[in-house]
C-alpha cells in the first residue's frame, strides 16, 4: 500500500501558469450624459450590447410594486414606429436575441447578434430605448402574464421559497419584502399612466450605461451609439436607496404549507451586507468555504455525508443595499429538522474556529483559477462590465480581483464569519408538508413557528 502523501506526490503537477487579463475596455461619456463602455473582443464575429438603466425594482412606487419589471418588458413590446409583432420580427430576422428584465437594482436590455448586423440591430434598440409605445393591449397582456406567473408560483416550491424568504426577512416597509416583480395586489393596481411616468423619470441618459462587447472598435461602437442615442435628452434620476432593515432580530420559523410535499424547500439566513463593502473579498472566500463550492462544508455534510439532498449551498445575494445571506437546499421531508440542525452547526463552526490552510487554499485557488473561465463569452463580459458600472467598482476591479482573492487569510475569513454571520438572527423558511415537518421543527426550539398558506396568509 502506498501512503496518502506518496499518492499525492505521484499526481500530475501543473505546468507554467499562463497570463490572463480581463478584456481591455474603454469608458466614454456622450454630451447628454450617456455612459458608453466598449470592450473589443475579436474572437468570433459577434457583438453583445447591454443597456443598463437605473430603473430596478427598488424604484417601484409604493403600492405598485412590479412597475419596474413591466416597464422593462414592455420596451420590447412595441415602439412608435413598430408594433410588438413587427419589432420582434425585425430583431429576429437579423438573428438578434434580445431580452429585457428588471432586477432589484437595475433594468436592462441585452442583445447578442452577429457583428455584421450590429448597426441595424442597434438602430432597433435605439427605437426601443427612445420611443417605446406602451400600447394598452400589450400592457394588459404582460400584466396578465405576470398574474399567470404568480399563480404558477403557488405550486412551484423552489421559486415560492425564494420569494417568501425575502418577505419574511425584511421589515414590511422594505421593497425587498415584496416580490421583485410585484404580487397580485400591487400588479393589479398598475395602470398604463404609471408606466409612462416611471419610464419618463427613470429612463434618462444621465443614469444609463450602454455596454458593447465583441467584434467592434471603440470608435465604431461610439459612432453607432451616437447615431441612435446622441439626440436623447433628459437629466439624471436620483438614486433610490432601499430600506434593508430586517423584520426581526431574533430567530423564527416560517412554514409555507404544500400538502403532501415529498421534500422541504429550505432557506435559512438573514439580512447580509451591501455589494460595495470593504470586506467583500473575505466574505466571498468565507462563503466559498461554508457553502459556495461543491466541496464546501454544507454540501459535503448534507449531500455527501448524509444523503439528505441533491445539493446544498450558501450565497450572499449582492445588491446595492444589503441583500440576503442564505443557505438553500431541498431535503427529504423526514430529515428537515436534521438538515436544519446540520446547517446551523456549520454556520456556528465557521464562527468558532479558523478554517484550515487546505480549506483556505481550495477556496482561493478556485476563485482565482476559474476567473478566466467566467469571461469566455461576449455576454459574460458585458454582464461583468454592467456590475462594474452599476456598483461603481474601481476601474481596475477585474485586474486586481485575483490578487485580492488570494491575499485573503484564514484570520480574515474567521473575522468575516464572526462579523457577518448572525446565528442568533437566522430565519428559517420551508415550503413543506407541515404535518410531516412541524412537530420535529417545534422540538428543535429554533424559534417561534408560524404556518402560512401559499399566498402568505397565516393559517397556524
Amino acid at each position, binding site marked *: 500500500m502506498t501512503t496518502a502523501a506518496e*499518492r499525492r506526490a*505521484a*499526481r*500530475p*503537477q*501543473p*505546468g*507554467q*501558469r*499562463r497570463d490572463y487579463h480581463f478584456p481591455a475596455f474603454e469608458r466614454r461619456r456622450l454630451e447628454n450624459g450617456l455612459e458608453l463602455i466598449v470592450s473589443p473582443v475579436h*474572437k468570433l*464575429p*459577434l457583438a453583445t450590447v447591454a443597456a443598463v438603466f437605473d430603473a430596478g425594482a427598488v424604484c417601484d412606487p409604493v403600492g405598485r410594486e412590479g412597475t419596474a419589471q413591466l416597464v422593462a418588458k414592455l420596451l*420590447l413590446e412595441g415602439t412608435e414606429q413598430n408594433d410588438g*409583432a413587427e419589432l*420582434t*420580427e425585425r*430583431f*429576429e*430576422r437579423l*438573428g438578434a*436575441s434580445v431580452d429585457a428584465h428588471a432586477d432589484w437594482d437595475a433594468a436592462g436590455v441585452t442583445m447578442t447578434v*452577429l457583428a455584421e448586423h450590429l448597426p441595424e440591430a442597434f438602430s432597433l434598440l435605439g427605437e426601443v430605448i427612445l420611443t417605446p409605445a406602451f400600447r394598452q393591449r400589450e400592457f394588459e*397582456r404582460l400584466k*396578465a*402574464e405576470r*398574474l*399567470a*406567473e404568480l399563480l*404558477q408560483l*403557488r*405550486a*412551484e*416550491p*423552489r421559486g415560492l421559497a425564494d420569494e417568501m424568504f425575502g418577505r419574511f426577512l425584511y421589515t414590511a416597509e422594505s421593497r425587498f419584502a415584496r416580490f421583485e416583480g410585484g404580487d397580485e395586489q400591487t400588479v393589479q393596481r398598475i395602470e398604463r399612466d404609471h408606466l409612462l411616468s416611471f419610464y419618463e423619470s427613470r429612463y434618462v441618459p444621465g443614469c444609463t450605461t450602454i455596454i458593447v462587447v465583441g467584434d467592434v472598435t471603440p470608435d465604431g461602437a461610439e459612432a453607432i451609439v451616437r447615431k441612435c442615442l446622441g439626440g436623447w435628452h433628459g437629466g439624471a434620476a436620483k438614486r433610490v436607496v432601499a430600506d434593508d432593515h430586517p423584520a426581526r432580530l431574533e430567530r423564527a420559523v416560517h412554514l409555507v404549507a404544500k400538502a403532501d410535499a*415529498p*421534500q422541504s*424547500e429550505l432557506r435559512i439566513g438573514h439580512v447580509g451586507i451591501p455589494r460595495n463593502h470593504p470586506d467583500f473579498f473575505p466574505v466571498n472566500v468565507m462563503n466559498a468555504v461554508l457553502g459556495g463550492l*461543491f*466541496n464546501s462544508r454544507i454540501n*459535503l455534510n448534507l*449531500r455527501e455525508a*448524509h*444523503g*439528505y*439532498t*441533491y445539493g446544498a449551498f450558501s450565497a450572499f445575494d449582492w445588491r446595492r443595499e444589503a441583500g440576503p445571506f442564505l443557505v438553500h437546499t*431541498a*431535503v*427529504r421531508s423526514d430529515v428537515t429538522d436534521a438538515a436544519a440542525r446540520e446547517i446551523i452547526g456549520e454556520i456556528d463552526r465557521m464562527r468558532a474556529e479558523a478554517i484550515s490552510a487546505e480549506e483556505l487554499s*481550495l477556496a482561493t*485557488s*478556485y476563485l482565482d*483559477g*476559474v*476567473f*478566466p*473561465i467566467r469571461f*469566455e463569452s*461576449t455576454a459574460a463580459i458585458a454582464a461583468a462590465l454592467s456590475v462594474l458600472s452599476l456598483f461603481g467598482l474601481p476601474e481596475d476591479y477585474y485586474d486586481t480581483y485575483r490578487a485580492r482573492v488570494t491575499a485573503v487569510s484564514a484570520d480574515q475569513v474567521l473575522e468575516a464569519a464572526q462579523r457577518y454571520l448572525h446565528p442568533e438572527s437566522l430565519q428559517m423558511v420551508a415550503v413543506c408538508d407541515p404535518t410531516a415537518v412541524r412537530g420535529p421543527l417545534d422540538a428543535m426550539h429554533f424559534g417561534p413557528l408560524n404556518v402560512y398558506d401559499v399566498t402568505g396568509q397565516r393559517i397556524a
Partner: protein
Amino acid sequence: MNLWYHVGSANERPGRTGFAHLFEHMLFQGSADVEANEHFELIQRAGGTLNGSTWLERTNYYETLPANQLELALWLEANRMGKLLPAMTQQKLDTQRDVVMNERRWTMDNQPYGSWMEKLPALCFPPEHPFHHSLIGSMEDLAAASLEDVAQFFATFYSPDNAVLSIAGDFDRREALELVQKHFGPIPAANRKPPLPDMALPPVFGQWKREVVPDDVMLPRLFLAFRSPVFGSDGYYAASVCGAVLGLRNASRLRRRLVRERQIAAEAGAFTYDLAKGADLLVADVTARPGVAAEQLEQETAYEIDLVVRDGIEAAEVERAVALIQTMFVTAMQSAAERADRLSMYATYFGDPHRVNDEVDRYRAVTLDQVNAFVRERLGESNRASLLYVPRDQAPGELVGAGAAAEAE
C-alpha cells in the same frame, strides 16, 4: 476537456431504470488513486469547473480548467476509466442512491409538471423500445441497484473503445497527444458492449396518442409531440428549423399566435430531443393563460398546427429561424467546454467530429420546400402525442382516466 461514453438510459436492462445516471454519480466517488469527492476537490483547487450528465444515448464528463492543468484532468478521467472498481463501496452506493432519490424528488416529484420528463417518452415510444423508460429511474429500481450492477456496468460500457475524448482551448497539440497516450494508452479495450435492439420505428405514430395528467399545478400545460427524423439525418435539419419556426423566441408561430395575438397561452415554445437512433421527437410546449381550460388549450394549439399543415410555412419564417439558430450556434462556440462537447457528440454519433464545422451550413441549406414537406408528412393528426396536464381540482370526471389509473398503482 470532455469525455463522452456511448451509454445512456437506453442501455439499461429491465428492472434497472435510472442506473446509467446513478452510475454517473458513482464516478465522482473516487477510483484506485483518488478518494471520494477528491475529483471535485482537485479540479476546483486547480481553478476548474466540472460535472457530468446522463442522457438517453450517452453520458458525458467534463472539466474546464486553466491550460497549465490539462494533465490533471486527463489523469483523473483515465484513473476512473481504468481503475474505478477498487474505490466502490456499499456505503458510497447507498449515499449516492439517496442523493439521486432526492434529485428525482427535486426535479420531478416536487416540481409542477415535473413528471413530463418520464411521461412523454413513455407515451411516444413503444413499451419495449430503449427510449420508453425513465431516465432518472423509478424509486424501486434505484433501491434494487447493487454493487454487482456497478461492476458489471463498468466492465460493459466504460472502456476506451466506447468513449470519445475531446480537448478544446489553449494547448500544444503534440504535448496534449503525448499526455493522452500516456494516461489513456495503457487502458485496454473491452469490446463487451452488447448491441442495442433494433430501434427503428415507422415515420409516424399512426394515431393521435393522448394522456391526461391531473397534477398539483395551477394552469393547464400541453406537450404536443411529433415523431421526427433522427438527429443529424438529412431530414433532421428541416425538422429542427420547423421547431424554431414554431417555438423559438418571440416572433415564432406559437408565441405570436397563441401568446401575443389570441392570448390563449401564457407561454409557448418548441424543442427537439436530438435523438440519434430510432426516431427523434419534436415537441411543442404550451402553458394556458388563467381561465383557459385544458381541452381548449389542446384544441387551440392543434388548430394552429392544423393551419400550418393546411397553409404551410412562409419563407420569412424560415429565414428568421435560421438566422436565430446561426447566432445561437456562434454564441455557443465561444465556450471551450461547449466546443469540446460538440466535438465529442459528432464523433460519438457520426464518427466525424468535423461536422461541427458544417453545422451552420446544414441549417442554411434547409429550403422552404423541405420544411413544408416535413410539415405535411409529420405534423398531421396521425403523428401527434398529447400529454396534457390539468390542475387536479379542475379535472372533470371523464378526463381523469389515464392519470388516475397511474396514480393508483
